[in-house]
């Protein structure tokens, strides 16, 4: 007997929902084993995580605080991934956005009218993120330099640069030597909705709406999808691929930069350690789990943010490592990745003697255990 993969004619909707759901269950079981090994009752831990993330309005606010940067970077990464440009530089683009916004908040607040500070910080931050993304984009578009490596190296450079700025030139002179800039003047604060949840949520909602429209309804969105799915066809129908890469990456970097702006002006209100805590990497998971769908990005970002906040909660309440959240994320994505096979293929058990005769060409045969 052999197990055979057959290509599905059309992907069923049930599978699309079933795969993420089963992946979630798998991740929770894997996490439960780790928790048991640490001597903690997994049900208590999960209940505490859930309560800490979604239990009341304060918890939801904290989850939103983490969801907003994940939404923005997730959307940014999703655009790049659409055309199979592996932008794993969201973290660095976020850092540069935050850096530029800090510059505006610290040095333009006295020069420009108060109402213009936040918009200026937003624009400059997006620009900084876009320019940081443009370097690997140009290298890939015109010199075919592998973008996975360059975007990642740019992260390390950006993070070191940001840390240099708040340790050195921009350090608060009245901060008793504490590494970090002075608190921003009030004109440079992004408005908050309630608790620490801030107006960045609207940026994320608008960005998702615009992206959905652009990808589904415009010529540019169509060209972007073609370039990603079939570069050869794209070249035949006259799409300028280097230009596509560049515009997609500018947009991607701008959204990641915006995430950084929101972090410094909405959450921290100064630049200090804690700007780059890995949102840009989690964004990759967000983008992939949402199958690059903008609305899906928002939903997945919210759920993963809950996982992170819940992880922090059990760290504080039970003394468990916060890295639990990261481990669960990985455990969540692995089965999702594997599960995508079952969305495209159907498993069939075939008897050995008939298998060769019936499916000589279109079967990937594997010996069953």
């Amino acid at each position, binding site marked *: 007997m052999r197990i055979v993969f057959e290509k599905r004619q059309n992907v069923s909707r049930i599978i699309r929902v079933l795969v993420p759901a089963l992946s979630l269950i798998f991740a929770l079981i894997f996490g439960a084993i780790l928790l048991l090994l640490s001597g903690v009752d997994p049900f208590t831990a999960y209940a505490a995580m859930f309560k800490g993330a979604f239990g009341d309005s304060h918890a939801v606010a904290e989850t939103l605080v983490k969801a907003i940067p994940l939404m923005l970077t997730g959307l940014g990464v999703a655009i790049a991934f659409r055309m199979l440009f*592996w932008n794993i530089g969201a973290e660095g683009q976020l850092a540069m956005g935050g850096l530029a916004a800090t510059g505006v908040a610290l040095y333009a607040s006295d020069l420009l009218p108060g109402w213009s500070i936040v918009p200026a910080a937003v624009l400059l931050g997006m620009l900084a993120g876009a320019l940081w993304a443009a370097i690997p984009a140009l*290298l890939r578009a015109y*010199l075919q330099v592998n973008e*996975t490596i360059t975007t990642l190296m740019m992260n390390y450079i950006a993070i*070191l640069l940001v840390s240099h700025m708040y*340790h*050195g030139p921009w350090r608060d002179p009245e901060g008793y030597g504490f590494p970090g800039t002075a608190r921003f003047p009030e004109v440079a604060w992004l408005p908050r909705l309630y608790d620490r949840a801030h107006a960045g949520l609207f940026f994320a909602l608008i960005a998702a709406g615009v992206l959905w429209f652009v990808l589904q309804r415009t010529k540019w969105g169509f060209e972007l999808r073609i370039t990603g799915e079939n570069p050869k066809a794209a070249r035949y129908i006259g799409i300028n691929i280097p230009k596509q890469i560049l515009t997609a990456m500018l947009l991607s970097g701008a959204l990641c930069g915006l995430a950084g702006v929101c972090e410094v002006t909405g959450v921290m209100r100064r630049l200090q350690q804690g700007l780059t805590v890995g949102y840009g990497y989690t964004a990759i998971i967000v983008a992939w789990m949402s199958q690059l769908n903008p609305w899906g990005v928002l939903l997945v970002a919210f759920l993963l943010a809950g996982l992170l906040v819940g992880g922090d909660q059990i760290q504080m309440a039970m003394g468990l490592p916060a*890295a639990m*959240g990261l481990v669960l994320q990985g455990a969540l994505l692995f089965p999702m*990745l594997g599960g995508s096979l079952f969305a495209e293929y159907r498993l069939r058990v075939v008897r050995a003697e008939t298998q060769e005769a019936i499916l000589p060409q279109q079967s990937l045969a594997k010996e069953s255990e």
Partner: protein
Amino acid sequence: MEALNFSLLTSILTITLRAGTSLLYATIGEIYAERSGILNLGVEGMMMVGAVAAFAVGYHTGSLVLALITALIAGALMASIHAFLSISLRANQVVSGLTLTLFGTGLASFLGQRLGPGGSRLVGLVGPSLERLPVPVLSQLPIVGSSFFNQDVLTYGLYALVPLAWWYLYRTRPGLYMRSVGENPQTSDAMGIRVGANRYFYTVVGGALAGLGGAHLSLAYTKGWTENITGGRGWIAVALVIFAMWDPLRAVIGAALFGGINAVQFRMQAAGTTIPAALLNMLPYIATIVVLVIITWWETLRKRIGAPAALGVPYAREEKG
């Protein structure tokens, strides 16, 4: 004056070798995986898990041999996740590898906070470490003596591994199979070479070597476990594979170059330079980009792409390539 220059040169060479060792293990491992057609971007995560596993086992058992074996197994287990996903389940290799790095980083950090005595943290503990073992006679040679022949076991291991890896890849039949499944899986399959089995094997071997590279960090280079111990070395290794054009011998030049940058940066900081530390710390990352650009540009000029043709492409027998 002459003696001073000699000692400076010796110290730079010594640090270069020490800093380059973990890189070279990981790079050779990734060269093997990629030669067989599997792009594994999880090197950073595999090194991280190797580092924490080696240190924890070394600390509790006091045995360095057990520590190194654990690192090999830990790296191999991590790589087998990627192998299963990308070979058997044909998942996207870029995303699967990235996930492996995220997962490995999280898992290592989790373990680092639990594996100390009585479930405490590993950070700050002192365990057994790989000490330098001077080779009799040879270590007395000027310059090369105290740099090349006064190192730890893992660095000596490279003196054998590098030529062996090259010989295996280019001069043996299994090496030929490895290259052929990476270049043209369809033809290899038709010739009766087991594409999947080969890819599984070299991906796992690559992971084991990455784990060993991680072990060098926690047992010899930093002598202890710290959060984010690899500091992007896994990613530099992925870049070095391209730099080396998938050739283990050329990987030595790359690892030496990056180890050398580390050494120079270390010396400059020790000498009390006025250049901010952050800018010096950027050097390896900037150098990676610059080198990658030059290599890619040069390769395109020569119209000879060294990458295995089927790199990153899942192989499914029923689909035409």
